[in-house]
């Protein structure tokens, strides 16, 4: 019995020491985009779908997040076809680049999407970021790759370069992140359907059934 308690103490000492050592590590600096204060310019994200759609889905996204990319490439085409194109849903994207070392280029990617959006190519740039997602979580310099995406989507690359170098929308992205935090976003992707948090899985089936139930309740109220 005494040996058992000695074993417990040994496990406790090793575990405690590991927690202590882990606690001494400093947070790594994240990303190539400098920290700027949130600048709320009134912009509430790019939308897809009819302005008169009865349902609005707001997606807080991190372009470096693998679930977001999977959702964007596998699930979103169905949503686009069945919910957005049919006029049921308006889809709104908000930036939520996670501030974690594993996502060093999340803010840079958000900046690329915003700079593309400035030239009316937000959605094609998002498609490029998600369709060629092998850049994510590598920690490599992605500036040339994203510039290639810009070229591929038909952007005026000179304007894109100026936008990226000046980090024109860094404040807007920070403001979107701050708003997300205030709404309780704690991971990506997070969805709000007509202001209500969607708790289900990030699948087209899950979102479609949630939207359909909301539509049914809206119809009943009328």
């Amino acid at each position, binding site marked *: 019995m005494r040996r058992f308690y000695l074993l417990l103490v040994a496990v406790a000492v090793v575990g405690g020491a590991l927690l202590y050592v882990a606690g001494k590590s400093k947070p790594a600096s994240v990303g190539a985009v400098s920290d700027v204060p949130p600048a709320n310019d009134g912009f509430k994200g790019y939308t897809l779908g009819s302005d008169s759609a009865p349902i609005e889905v707001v997606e807080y996204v991190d372009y470096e997040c693998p679930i977001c990319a999977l959702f964007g490439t596998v699930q979103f085409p169905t949503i686009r076809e069945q919910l957005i194109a049919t006029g049921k849903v308006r889809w709104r994207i908000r930036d939520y680049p*996670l501030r974690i070392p594993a996502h060093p280029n999340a803010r840079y990617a958000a900046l690329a999407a915003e700079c593309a959006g400035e030239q009316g190519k937000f959605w094609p740039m998002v498609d490029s970021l998600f369709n060629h997602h092998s850049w994510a979580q590598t920690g490599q310099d992605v500036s040339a790759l994203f510039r290639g995406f810009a070229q591929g989507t038909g952007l005026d690359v000179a304007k894109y370069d100026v936008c990226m170098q000046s980090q024109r929308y860094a404040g807007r992205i920070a403001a979107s992140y701050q708003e997300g935090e205030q709404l309780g976003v704690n991971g990506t992707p997070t969805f709000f359907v007509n202001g209500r948090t969607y708790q289900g899985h990030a699948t087209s089936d899950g979102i479609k059934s949630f939207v359909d139930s909301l539509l049914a309740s809206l119809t009943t109220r009328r």
Partner: protein
Amino acid sequence: MRHRQVIAALALAGLFVALYLYLYKIGVYGELKCGSGGCETVQASPYAILLGQPVALYGVLGYAALLAVSVLGLQPRFAARRWPTLLLAALATLGFLFTAYLTFLEMFVIHAWCRWCLGSAVIITLIWLVALPAARRNRA
């Protein structure tokens, strides 16, 4: 009796793993020592929160309960009682099923592996493998 000792030692190890993940999730640690970005990807996913609380907190509570019951069951006044063994089996089964669900999410939904979560999965599986046969013997 031996099975309660083994479970207590494993539960204590699991408690530290869960505590580490929980302390990261609430912002005490800046980064996870993971070797890959998988831990942070998993921790940053919406699935790392359940009923408004970090999933790791349920791990902390679960391992603490397993540790408390097993140590209590080793005390002379409870050593011959059946209930600690049965309770340990019930808690271990609950933890094992919950961990299986989380591992499923890592594999098929999040598409990222958190090594610490896998470490915890191994620990709870070992606890379950020790607790279940002990409970069966106890019932016989």
